[in-house]
């Protein structure tokens, strides 16, 4: 009797979860498309590198999605864990700076106290030019 109750409970929980999953947007079949990966890599200059990394990303999204189960009607969103803190206001005095030498020490290349950078943003190579990562 107990076993059946548990089984029923489990099935309803799974059904609830599946139902919830299918209610979400069509993208969420659980897969993150190659297009989105490329877009993210370009934006954030991260390198997913392998299919395992993408799979890990998908799992992380699924994990976070469980938050949607919570009923938040009428509840103010939390924007910052600092929301109860006071934002400290500093007086308008000059207390820093004048350390060009120290800062320039970090630079790879320097010309007369200027940092040196390439002439513009260097675009990531397009998808087909990239080395395709190993698909499992």
């Amino acid at each position, binding site marked *: 009797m107990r076993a059946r109750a548990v089984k029923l409970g489990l099935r309803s929980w799974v059904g609830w979860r599946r139902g919830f999953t299918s209610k979400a947007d069509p993208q969420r079949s659980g897969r993150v498309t190659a297009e989105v990966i490329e*877009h993210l890599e370009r*934006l*954030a*200059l991260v390198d997913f590198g392998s299919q395992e990394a993408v799979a890990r990303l998908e799992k992380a999204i699924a994990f976070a999605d469980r938050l949607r189960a919570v009923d938040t009607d009428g509840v103010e969103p939390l*924007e*910052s864990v*600092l*929301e*109860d*803190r*006071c*934002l*400290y*206001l*500093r*007086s*308008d*005095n*000059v*207390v*820093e*700076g*004048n*350390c*060009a030498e120290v*800062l*320039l020490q*970090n630079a790879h290349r320097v*010309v*007369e*106290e*200027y*940092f*040196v*950078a*390439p*002439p*513009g*943003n260097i*675009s990531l190579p397009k998808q087909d030019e990239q080395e395709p990562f190993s698909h499992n």
Partner: protein
Amino acid sequence: MAAPVKRWSCVGKRWVLAYIDGGSRHGRGAAIGFTSRRKRGQSSVAQQPLITAQKSRKGEHEWEAVVGLEIHAQISSNSKLFSGSQVHFAAPPNSLVSFFDASLPGTLPVLNRRCVEAAVMTGLALNCRINKKSLFDRKHYFYADLPAGYQITQQRLPIAVNGSLAYSVCVGKKPSQVSTKTVRIKQIQLEQDSGKSLHDEPRSQTLIDLNRAGVGLLEVVLEPDMSCGEEAASAVRELQLILQALGTSQANMAEGQLRVDANISVHHPGEPLGVRTEVKNLNSARFLAKAIDFEIERQIHELENGRKILNETRSFDYKLGCTMPMRDKEGKQDYRFMPEPNLPPLLLHDTASLPPGADPQQVINIDWIRERLPELPSETREKLIQQYGMLPEHSFALLNEVGLLEFFQNVIKETRAEPKKVTSWVLNIFLGFLKQQNLTVNESPVTPSALAELLNLLDRKAISSSAAKQVFEELWRSKGKTPSQIVSEKKLELMQDQEALERVCHTVMEGHPQVVMDVKRGNPRAINKLMGLVRKATLSRADPTVIKKILERKLSS
């Protein structure tokens, strides 16, 4: 002389196809032929409605242009928005940079109180609602002059919203034909400035100076309520004057303290808005209107020829006088906005909501700031009109030149002459001399006291109007001499001896009987000839009105 060319021109709010006499060809690289007339009182290229509406074909080819602006004003403060390094225009590269500005790990932003006050003042002056709670966000993009890879700004909930800015535009050919327009202000937000990039094309590198990185900016977003370059330029000019009056920004475009981006689109009246383009980095008051008008014309031209407008970012090439697509912008940017995790919400108070026993240094009271707002340009102009009976266009002209109003008020203080006389002398003669020699009011060789003394002499009728102008010229050339000195040196005093003057008149009349006859016969211009003769005889040292009276009396007897 080129044959009349059909060109789009702005008549009121509408852009119509009309004939323009002469003018350059519309094409890449050609300066677009809007006749610019440098009007006194306007620092931007004022655009003229060139052709009357009768010549245009109404309805068929009418376009309406829609212009919105995003204006970045550097806050006038000692230190930066989130760090304690100095804000200063010219300094050795990277000498005004703190560890936070250089985005070294482990550094955190600390908000500058002065910048918040500046934002509140500006919001109040522009009739905005000040948000008692505002939030900071990160706007991510990659560029070498943005060391952190993101800019701290206020995207979700800015410090001030829903304001308005009133400005004046010329609606006719005469300077007196002005009308007031209003543009809505969407929001005002606090944000960081980026560093400066110096492009070294030959060596294929960019040099980065972070002195400017982290300086506080006020971004003022104007709704697309404007319809041409002149309106946009006037609105920007008025905003500049307001910021300068408040002291929140020096708003000097030449020094990069005020930068404007324009969003421009065109559409047929009654139809939905067209695709807009963004023209970035309009940093010159002179070219602001020109650039916007060029872009409007370009868009109309493209659409008229069946092509589409791309939603792109363009920049204005000052030398060629045209907008070009900006390189390095691949598609639409995704800024991945996220809340700034290191800053709690910014809470502002008013007198009613001040927490008791709070540290005054840590609390900002909106009411306290409102009570201490300085006088705004519109108020100042109104006072001038009421107090001195000045024409509105003169009040604009006085406020339009740095230091001119103060000069004017100092002259008024020390002179007995009528305000209208002072206004006329300051705006016509004094300003004329300044412009001719490209000087600022501060560089003027003539002091307010000197001009006041000169006007007193004129008022007392000690010298004539033409003599006064001579004295002024001499004052300008040779410093140190007072007007009285010059008058006696050059013997410019008006003859005070009535009898002597009568004798001169008598002599002249006797010497020119024919002219006297002409006058008696009713020739109106003959009396002027007599007056001229008397004036020559007295070496221009007699008051023309007195001469006329004496002559008329003698002639009628």
